[in-house]
């Protein structure tokens, strides 16, 4: 670290020698005394003073000032971290640049290096020869350029999405040497750090031109994504990195064609690991939507894997005999579509058309006899790899009466077999275990699927062999046969649930999927032989970004797309937009080993740009100067506390600003974590009370609401869960319909968050019961402490005009018909929103009173009341419960109940 420190003008450092002189000077000058005006001078003059010598400056103040001076001197000397070393030598420079995808990840350091070289060359009038090693269609000539021109080259040169082709570079170097024999150049090889087959020869060729310095960052994290064998649960990739030093962490991100992120898999490599296998676990439906998988932030074409349309899901052709216009629930195609949809594209149409449109699976739903031409086409198609799935049905059974139709795995007996009917002996059959060697091996037979009817195969050894699924009595349910590359399967039941439960069971989907994946056919096999050329759609640049292709990028055949990328076969997407073919920068053959050049001088790229330290030093000196001023003021007694705090804050800000480097802002996730209590509250209705901070009051509120909840449960259709204590400032009130807010004396005026929260709660239909619990004391005109606290809260709230609860108010009618909302006490009136037509459908958002409802409601766990009723005894308590039930009822039903109040009037108007 310190070795990277250098000074632009080191001579100024000599001024540090003057620090002792400053120290002496400062010591000699005492701080100025505190000055006060004083009238009683006549007495002061009589005082004899013993100590008239000036104060010494305190040592720490001296130290502060010395440090201040030292910082200023250091700042003036212009310290630079990681300053570029002075360049030796003259004569032309040769820059050999690996402009490959592996270099793209850290292209900036290479560009810095190029710019440094350009500046150096421009300063010393040196020529530069640039050699790039990424293969190009027409390799440029190696011609000298000036430093100024090099700046343009550095700005414009971008990495190619290809690997270095050093072998062809050797040839270009050789021809260059012929044009400039005997030249002694300074060669700087800005390598990408990836080994190739011709490294040693390339280095030798460079050495013949001049002294070679190899730049490489052996510890830079260059990661590459290589497609691996897909796994059962999804596509798999190998993430490889150049150096195994340190821990590597990254995210594997799969995106859809529209750019949506489909999956994200965090991957971490331990120290020493160079390769890790990552499998993206994706549902089949999503697998087909994949367009690219990339290592996030890898910034390299090697970190991107484009998904070929050929990897997509199967195309299934559906041929049905049933009338399409009939109710789809009665047609087999409906069940087949539902079962195949997650992983297959479904085409319907005449068979010959289907076969021409690259389907890999053909499903014949209860098709009896085929035309001869179709028969032949299907047979050749199955031989090529197609899978034919047939379903039985009345038509096939009928056709089998006469002769066994073609393209069936087993010969059928005419007619069918029905179980469980009124005149049959057999009961409906269940599925037996699947034979392990068949395509359904490993699936677990469901116990709840009953087969009621089926077509029967001619029994025989062949039939037993070709049975892929059977019933418990041994008769085949699915028979199948492999023919050529393909297969033929027959379900001995219909694709509708008429014959069996199978089409509506999950097993149906699994079985069809297994069969579908028997197919060896895909779009490429159809096209491989054809000389169709696919035009480039989007091509990758070295950073792994997709760009529109240039006019001269060649179109490729499907065969060429399978070869390794090159200057004529740039990685990217080819063909049609909805089913593009992909050519990736990395394929199975790509070498990815660290570059080893024996005997070469290898330097790291300067990872850190030079950093000038003067500014922070001056900032610290400025802060110390301010501090010194403050201290001087303080010593002379001219500093007041508030001023001191403000000044200290300013200094702290300056110091923090000087010391903190700008941090990358981290975006907050959009979906904040949901609080567990909020989830509970959302799942079950509960009453809530406001946390007052007074444990006695909070406990009483909890017990009161528990008791009230119990009474609600007992008497009404409201069945609340145990009540919750809410913090008005932080909790989400929208989950609670009813809030009990006991006011304690001396309650603080609520914060702005609280007020906003409460106002929102009231505005969107919540009901708050404010209880000052001071009824017996509030008889006179004086206001109790609780009332004052309530006033402090209410003056800040946006509350509607209030009125007393009287007469026909809905609170007195919502469940019980009552005359008063009685609490433990009943002297003072209860207030609610006055204007019935106001906001929230005229339902009062608040009830204000001092009647200590909680005291009346609260019981212990055994249901015994906790507080005595002053008047009326248990009858009064019952009335208090009724008041509570009415309040909660209003909170739950809103204006429904108030409309009920008007029912007689409405009926009267209607003339009843």
């Amino acid at each position, binding site marked *: 670290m310190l070795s990277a420190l250098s000074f632009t003008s080191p001579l100024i450092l000599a001024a540090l020698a003057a620090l002792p002189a400053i120290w002496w000077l400062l010591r000699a000058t005492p701080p100025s*005394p*505190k*000055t*006060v*005006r*004083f*009238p*009683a*001078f*006549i*007495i*002061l*003059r*009589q*005082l*004899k*003073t*013993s*100590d*008239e*010598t*000036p*104060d010494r400056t305190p040592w720490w103040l001296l130290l502060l000032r010395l440090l201040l001076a030292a910082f200023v001197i250091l700042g003036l000397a212009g310290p630079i971290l990681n300053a570029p070393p002075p360049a030796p030598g003259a004569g032309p420079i040769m820059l050999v640049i690996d402009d490959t995808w592996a270099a793209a990840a850290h292209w900036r350091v290479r560009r810095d290096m190029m710019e440094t070289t350009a500046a150096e060359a421009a300063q010393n009038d040196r020529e530069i020869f640039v050699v790039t090693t990424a293969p190009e269609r027409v390799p440029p000539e190696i011609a000298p350029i000036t430093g100024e021109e090099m700046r343009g080259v550095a700005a414009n040169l971008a990495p190619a999405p290809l690997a270095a082709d050093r072998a062809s570079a050797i040839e270009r170097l050789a021809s260059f040497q012929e044009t400039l024999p005997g030249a002694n150049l300074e060669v700087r090889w800005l390598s990408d750090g990836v080994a190739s087959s011709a490294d040693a020869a390339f280095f030798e060729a460079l050495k013949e031109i001049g002294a070679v310095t190899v730049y490489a960052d052996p510890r830079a994290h260059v990661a590459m994504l290589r497609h691996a064998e897909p796994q059962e649960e999804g596509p798999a990739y190998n993430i490889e990195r150049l150096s195994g030093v340190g821990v590597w962490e990254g995210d594997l991100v799969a995106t859809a064609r529209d750019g949506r992120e489909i999956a994200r898999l965090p991957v971490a490599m331990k120290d020493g690991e160079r390769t890790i296998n990552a499998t993206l676990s994706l549902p089949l439906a999503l697998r087909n939507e994949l367009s690219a998988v990339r290592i996030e932030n890898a910034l390299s074409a090697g970190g991107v894997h484009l998904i070929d349309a050929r990897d997509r899901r199967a195309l299934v052709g559906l041929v049905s005999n049933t009338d399409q216009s009939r109710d789809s629930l009665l047609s087999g195609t409906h069940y087949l579509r539902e079962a195949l949809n997650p992983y297959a594209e479904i085409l319907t149409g005449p068979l010959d058309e289907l076969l021409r449109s690259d389907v890999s699976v053909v499903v014949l739903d209860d098709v009896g006899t085929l035309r001869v031409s179709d028969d032949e086409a299907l047979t050749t198609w199955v031989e090529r790899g197609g899978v034919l799935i047939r379903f039985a049905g009345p038509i096939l059974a009928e056709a089998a009466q006469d002769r066994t139709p073609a393209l069936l795995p087993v010969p059928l007996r005419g007619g069918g077999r029905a179980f469980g009917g009124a005149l049959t002996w057999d009961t409906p059959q269940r599925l037996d275990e699947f034979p392990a060697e068949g395509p359904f091996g490993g699936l677990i037979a469901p116990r709840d699927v009953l087969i009621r009817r089926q077509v029967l195969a001619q029994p025989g050894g062949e039939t037993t062999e070709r049975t892929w699924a059977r019933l418990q009595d041994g008769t085949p349910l699915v028979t199948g046969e492999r023919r050529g590359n393909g297969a033929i399967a027959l379900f001995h039941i219909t694709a509708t649930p008429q014959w069996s439960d199978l089409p509506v069971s999950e097993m149906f989907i699994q079985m069809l999927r297994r069969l579908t994946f028997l197919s060896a056919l895909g779009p490429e096999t159809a096209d491989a032989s054809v000389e169709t050329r696919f035009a480039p759609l989007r091509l990758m640049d070295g950073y792994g970004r997709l760009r529109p292709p240039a006019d001269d990028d060649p179109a490729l055949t499907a065969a060429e797309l399978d070869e390794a990328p090159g200057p004529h076969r740039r990685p990217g997407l080819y063909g049609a937009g909805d089913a593009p073919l992909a050519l990736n920068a990395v394929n199975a053959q790509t070498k990815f080993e660290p570059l080893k050049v024996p005997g070469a001088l290898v330097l790291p790229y300067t990872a850190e740009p030079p950093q000038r330290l003067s500014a922070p030093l001056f900032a610290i000196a400025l802060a110390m100067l301010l501090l010194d001023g403050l201290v001087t003021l303080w010593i002379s*007694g001219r500093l007041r506390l508030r001023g001191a705090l403000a000044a200290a804050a300013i200094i702290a800000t300056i110091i923090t600003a000087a010391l903190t480097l700008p941090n990358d802002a981290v975006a907050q996730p959009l979906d904040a974590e949901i609080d567990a209590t909020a989830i509970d509250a959302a799942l079950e209705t509960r009453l809530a009370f406001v946390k007052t901070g007074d444990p006695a009051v909070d406990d009483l509120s909890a017990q009161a609401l528990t008791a009230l909840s119990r009474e609600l449960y007992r008497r009404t259709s409201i069945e609340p869960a145990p009540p919750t204590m809410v913090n008005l400032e932080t909790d989400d009130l929208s989950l609670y319909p009813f809030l009990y807010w006991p006011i304690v004396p001396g309650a603080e005026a609520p914060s702005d968050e609280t007020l906003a929260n409460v106002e929102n709660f009231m505005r969107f239909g919540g009901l708050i019961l404010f209880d000052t619990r001071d009824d017996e004391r509030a008889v006179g005109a004086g206001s109790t402490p609780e009332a004052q606290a309530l006033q402090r809260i209410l003056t800040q709230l946006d509350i509607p005009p209030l009125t007393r609860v009287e007469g026909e108010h809905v609170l007195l009618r919502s469940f019980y018909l009552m005359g008063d909302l009685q609490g433990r006490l009943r002297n003072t009136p209860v207030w609610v929103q006055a204007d019935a037509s106001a906001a929230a459908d005229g339902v009062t958002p608040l009830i204000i009173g001092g009647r200590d409802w909680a005291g009346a409601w609260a019981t212990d766990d055994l249901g015994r009341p906790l507080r005595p009723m002053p008047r009326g005894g248990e009858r009064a308590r019952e009335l208090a419960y009724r008041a509570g039930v009415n309040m909660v009822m209003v909170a739950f039903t809103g204006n429904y109940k108030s409309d009920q109040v008007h029912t007689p009037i409405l009926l009267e108007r209607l003339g009843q």
Partner: protein
Amino acid sequence: MAPSDHNIIRHDAEEAAALFPALLVEAERIAQTVAAGLHGRRRAGPGETFWQHRPYAFGDPVNAIDWRQSARAVDRLYIRQNEWEAAAAVYVWRDPSRSLDFASLKTLPSKRRRADVLTLALAILLSQAGERIGVLGEERRPFHGRGAPTRLLEALHIDAYRDTASTPPPAHLPPGGRVVMISDFFADIDALGKSVSALAAAGATGALVQVCDPAEEDFPYEGRVEFKDLESRDRLIFGETGSLERDYRKKFAAHRDALANVARTAGWTLITHRTDNPVQTALLALYTALGDARLWT
């Protein structure tokens, strides 16, 4: 200073005075003064209140005859005589020097302001009682009546300083006059003593009110402090003021003793007042010192 300062002082003074009944200066020997006032002298003379009827004697002015009374008797003429009433005059001297313009804390009023309020409160109380109040050393007659406080306030020149006048000016008072001196008396005690004894010799009695800032009494300073005089612009630097506190207090007490001595010698009263105490304490002391004990007991 703006007239608002007048208003503030007037307001403060009225507030202070509101707590006291009107101040009647104790009339011990008020008979000598000629001005009409409320001190009945229990003898006939010029005045408003009826004193006695007396038979007409030769030489009495005809217009003094009470015809109504005379008509009740046969062949008798009566003269109506009123009680001879005289008003006392109180002369106030408020130190106009700059040394009073001091307050050690922002929350405290300056000594000058306190002295002004005290003076005016006194004037209000006196004028309510019909007494006269004047400014010591001024040629003008003492003010009386309802306008007296206002005119006194103007005469005080609350916004002017005269640093040379830190001792009371020589004055010729009518005998029996009362003098109230309000100052911090941080000046030459001997000069003050001469002034007071001269007034006392002329028959004046009165009170010295020393208004002090708490800092002047307590000397709450620490460390190295430079003191600046308010009047002379002198400076004194003390290295360790904290250690001087005891010494200072001793000297301060000695100064006050000397002041008390001056008052005692002249038969006057010394009232000390700190600005962190309410003005009523000083006003009460003055009230006691000047008031007619017979009236307010």
